[in-house]
């Protein structure tokens, strides 16, 4: 789950990190009220994606009128596929310098990594590409977290020696997001040093591990409903499915990320355009298949569905029963190609045939078949 900026900042504040005074506004009036309370403010779009500034989602307001106008312009705006539901109005900071600090998972090292750079601000990715030595790194021990001397070393390495002590204190607080909230990314960019010498989180990004949601029901309850995004992805998430929306018109259901991606590749190779990626995972039961099909059929663009299941832990007979029940319950009339093999495949194929669904033979053939059927507009 990717938290919105104000949510991430609430979490960081609870860990003891200083954040600027700020107020959430859902309409222009509330933004005007925020100005009255805070003075000059930054009006910031709340979307769980980077690049808001460049997309025009952050505006400075020096009067009530400006605050009102900024909110008017930003709320409802589309930023990289996310409709802005609300803005965060935050007291403008007296910035002396901007630092980058963030934790993320380093897949290669199979560890968390701390990244620290004196070159904070928007173009940190460019810094990483052009002068990687400007970013100091530390892989903290995952059982005890970073130690003081390690953090001092990183600060000196990043050329931030004069700030070593306040930075170490801040990084230790930020690190708590990992053990306490299962953070996969916890990033402050920029970390602002004010002219008064205070260290304040100018922005915050926090992504928590969905696999650990059972440990953090509180986060889900507090913030889950606010994270608007693609309606099908939201619905799929409610039903516990791994689902990504795409632009095309052929619904895809597969088990296992690799097979699902492989199926997308095959459909595109056959000249079709996938409408989604939906991985029903291992151990998929009839109910899960029905859920997946239901979500895909919610999308009016979908003209046909390809189900590609190779069973290991997923049993063919269960998949087949799920497909038949789902098709019947959902009164589905669009073309449906089911390619299935693996454990109990004979039983599964038999069930499909008895119910008038022809099982596909190979993935490639099935992909060609569904592309052909959707082109012909069967069922429409």
């Amino acid at each position, binding site marked *: 789950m990717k938290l919105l900026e104000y949510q991430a900042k609430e979490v960081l504040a609870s860990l003891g990190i200083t954040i600027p005074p700020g107020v959430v506004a859902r309409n222009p009036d509330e933004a005007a009220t925020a100005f009255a309370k805070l003075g000059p403010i930054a009006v910031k779009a709340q979307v769980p*994606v980077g690049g808001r500034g460049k997309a025009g989602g952050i505006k400075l307001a020096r009067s009530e009128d400006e605050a009102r106008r900024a909110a008017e312009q930003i709320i409802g705006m589309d930023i990289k596929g996310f409709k802005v539901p609300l803005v965060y109005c935050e007291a403008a900071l007296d910035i002396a310098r901007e630092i980058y600090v963030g934790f993320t998972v380093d*897949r290669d090292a199979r560890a968390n990594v701390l990244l620290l750079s004196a070159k904070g601000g928007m173009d940190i990715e460019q810094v990483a590409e052009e002068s990687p030595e400007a970013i100091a790194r530390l892989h903290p021990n995952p*059982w005890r977290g970073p130690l003081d001397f390690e953090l001092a070393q990183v600060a000196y390495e990043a050329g931030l020696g004069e700030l070593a002590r306040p930075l170490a204190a801040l990084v230790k607080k930020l690190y708590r997001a990992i053990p306490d909230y299962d953070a996969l990314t916890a990033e402050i960019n920029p970390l602002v040093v004010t002219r008064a010498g205070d260290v304040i989180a100018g922005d915050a990004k926090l992504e928590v591990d969905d696999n650990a949601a059972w*440990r953090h029901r509180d986060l889900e309850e507090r913030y889950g409903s606010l994270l608007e995004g693609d309606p099908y992805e939201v619905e799929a998430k409610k039903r516990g499915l791994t689902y990504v929306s795409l632009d095309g018109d052929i619904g895809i259901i597969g088990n296992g990320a690799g097979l699902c991606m*492989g199926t997308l590749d095959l459909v595109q190779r056959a000249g079709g355009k996938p409408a989604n990626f939906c991985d029903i995972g*291992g151990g998929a039961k009839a109910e899960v298949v029905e859920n997946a099909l239901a979500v895909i059929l919610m999308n009016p663009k979908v003209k046909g569905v390809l189900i590609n299941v190779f069973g290991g832990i997923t049993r063919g007979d269960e998949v087949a029963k799920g497909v038949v029940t789902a098709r019947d319950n959902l009164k589905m009339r669009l073309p449906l190609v089911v390619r299935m*093999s693996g454990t109990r495949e004979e039983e599964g194929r038999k069930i499909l045939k008895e119910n008038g669904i022809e099982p596909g033979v190979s993935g490639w053939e099935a992909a060609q078949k569904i592309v052909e059927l959707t082109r012909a507009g069967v069922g429409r």
Partner: protein
Amino acid sequence: MSILLDASTRVIVQGITGREGGFHTEQMQELGTKVVAGTSPGRGGTAHLGVPVFNTVADAVKATGANASGIFVPAPFAADAIMEAAAAGITLIVCITEGIPIQDMIRVKDFLRGYPGARLIGANCPGLITPGQAKIGIIPQRITRPGQVGLVSRSGTLTYEVASALSAAGMGQSTIVGIGGDPVLGLTFRDVVELFEKDPETTHLVLIGEIGGSDEEHAAELLARGSRLKAVAFISGRTAPEGKRMGHAGAIISGNRGTARSKEEAFQKAGVAVAETTDDIVGMLR
């Protein structure tokens, strides 16, 4: 010959009394895997599927001399189960469980440094099978046959697809290893390729990768130094859109690595043939 697992490996199943654990233990037994015990806290002293059940892995190892384990326990308990197996002296730990929090696995990886003899496969993987001899996990044996192709894959279901095609074409497999698709996992492509390289009976190699991470690139770097294996690689996800990423930290870490193109180019540079679809693999391997 084979790598990691053969008919003499003494296997326990952690979570043997669960639905999936039980179902797949029977499949493992049917192939001839030497399943010597199971564990299930609170069920110690009973028997299940013809083998004794113990409360702890330590008890099971002491009583049976087990040296390998298949883990089928639910995600909230899986990380602990892996560490329990390592601490009890198990040297081949295969964790099938999916959905383990990444931070749990990061701690597990650090813990395992204290047990250099323990090899972890997975988590979130289909396990491994040495056809005709033994398996730990969920790879269906009827799609495999004994032979000389080493198969290593990050995907579960694509592995079955390819194994099935190889078997149908009369190309048997020495060992099939599903290393799992999680970002933080045990054995890597490179580790497994190294093992196949040392196994005299393995003459061919199939690698099935996915977008994300740079494990495929690392394996390609190893193969580029020279290999006696005739190899074919396949990467799934070449048309997948870039993830809706947030923050910059991930991009700083991965740079340009991780894309299907980067992986395919790395393999081509190493002299490994790259298949466009899984259907092409068999023909290219001949």
